[in-house]
């Protein structure tokens, strides 16, 4: 029967292997290769923190300049309690938003567009107001465990109301 010491050693080794697997590297490596993923033409919906629905979304075009597909699986931001990768999908006769199974796959040398009514990075539980002209940062993490920091500028958007609820009418009257 394994002693406690052996068990502890086994757990430690397992943890190290798991963590190394997460990062895709062995311990004590120097700086990792650049990810090759950028977000251009990005913007985030301006939303007050204390509104009815303190949620927002980041849009833009993810560009993969590397020669391998990159999959984003999760995100984090100081502006939101949680960050999710969302898609819009038809469910029960209505378009609804939900987490995208498998995350965002940006093909090698190609792009993936995040736009209202489509894929977006969802910011849930805002910690501060997002005002038009503010810059918001988020960290998106790849399946390999590498982080990419993206920025987005706040914009007033009459649309992008799927973030709130599909049944609600969209925004103000316009002209």
């Amino acid at each position, binding site marked *: 029967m394994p002693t406690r010491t052996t068990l502890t050693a086994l757990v430690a080794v397992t943890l190290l292997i798991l*963590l190394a697997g*997460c990062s895709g590297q062995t311990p004590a490596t120097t700086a990792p290769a650049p990810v090759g993923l*950028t977000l251009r033409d*990005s913007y985030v919906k301006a939303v007050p923190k204390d509104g009815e629905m303190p949620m927002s979304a980041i849009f833009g075009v993810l560009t993969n300049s590397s020669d391998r597909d990159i999959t984003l699986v999760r995100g984090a931001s100081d502006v939101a309690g949680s960050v999710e990768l969302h898609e819009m999908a038809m469910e029960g006769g209505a378009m609804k*938003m939900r987490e995208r199974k498998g995350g965002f796959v940006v093909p090698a040398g190609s792009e993936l567009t995040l736009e*209202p009514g489509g894929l977006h990075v969802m910011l849930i539980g805002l910690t501060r107001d997002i005002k*038009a*002209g503010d810059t918001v940062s988020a960290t998106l993490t790849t399946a390999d465990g590498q982080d990419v920091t993206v920025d987005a500028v706040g914009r*007033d958007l009459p649309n992008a109301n799927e973030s709130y609820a599909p049944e609600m009418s969209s925004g103000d009257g316009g002209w």
Partner: protein
Amino acid sequence: MMSDRTPDVGASRSSARGRVSRRALLRTGGGAAAALGLGAGAAVAVPRLLPDPSYPPATGGLEPFFGPHQAGVTTGRQSSAAFAAFTLRPVMRIADAQRMMRLVSDDAARLTAAQPALGDQEPDLARHAARLTVTFGVGPDLFGRLGLAAARPAGLVDLPAYKIDRLQARFSGGDVLVQIGADDPMVVAHALRQLTKTLRSFADRRWVQRGFTSAPGGFQERQRGESRWGHGGSSPQPALVRNLMGLVDGSANPRPAEPDFGSLVWSAGAPAWFAGGTTLVLRRIAMTLSTWDELDTSGKELAMGRRVATGAPLSGRLESDEPDLAAVDGNGQPVIPAFSHVAQARARTPEERFLRRSYSYDDGHADDEDTGTGLLFASYQADIGRQFLPVQQRLASSDAMNAWTVPIGSAVFALPPGCAPGGYIGQGLLS
């Protein structure tokens, strides 16, 4: 099929909270990995301001947005224009104005490069720029409102009230100006709509004045001694641009090739942040066409001081001839009447000159026969007080054309210098 927590109105909050706690474990794990020096390395991606090379330049030409001066002043006049003025929200502070100008400068840089603005809801209307220019200005009251009274340019002077004025508030004043021009009215309309949307958090639209001219395509260059066909459009266009009275417009304008052009138009830096900027006087001049129609050609020419057909001064033969106010006819009478427009408008000193870039308007309703048609008089100069006011004073008191025109709108603005990529219009003032 994943176990779906599809958010709808009722469930979104609780399911969001549930996901937060499930996420916490993974984030902690990632944090530990980072602490061990693994899997770090953040690549920073920033929003780009520059044109996207995947969009080819549009036909009809692109006018550069970046540069030492804003576009739309010396740019060849486009055939469609809109001037829109906005009133700043009372709560605005300098930090808000910075955000505002960053956003609209970004919109302008993209749209003039034939690219959609960020969040543009009609991106297809942005793919064709048609020489679009977007020019920004700030009105006199904005400086005090933002606590920047000391930064107000010396050349930005309010016009006094003139006896001839019948100014309407809906064509006058304003804190922020957006001047839009393009050779396609759809492009102008889209740009105006986009900028109005972007400004919505910061300012309310106060008025829009739309104009047109019969000069599509290239810059109309007048050659000494000849009329040259312009380029662009489906048929040759005459080089002379006219207003809706049928009179040649823009005679004796300072030209870019002339040595003092720069000092007439661009501020040398009064104050320093304003170097490379200019001021705009925008006056809506209604034409009382019902009585203008009662004149014959010679009556019009005596009021104007120029031939209708050619724009030549009555003392000369070509539009480019210098008016000779001393010329007399066989009876000793002045060839150019003393109270004609040309005689009163003519510069008495070299600095009484300014760059005119006017547009026609014609959007009156049936009951507006005598105010619905006219001229959006636009004049650009480094210093309104020294260059424009003396001329305007003479015209207000002594111009024969006053019998057939009525100023119904008036506004002045300071147009900041241009900016470089990464900057924004007005940065020198606001930062």
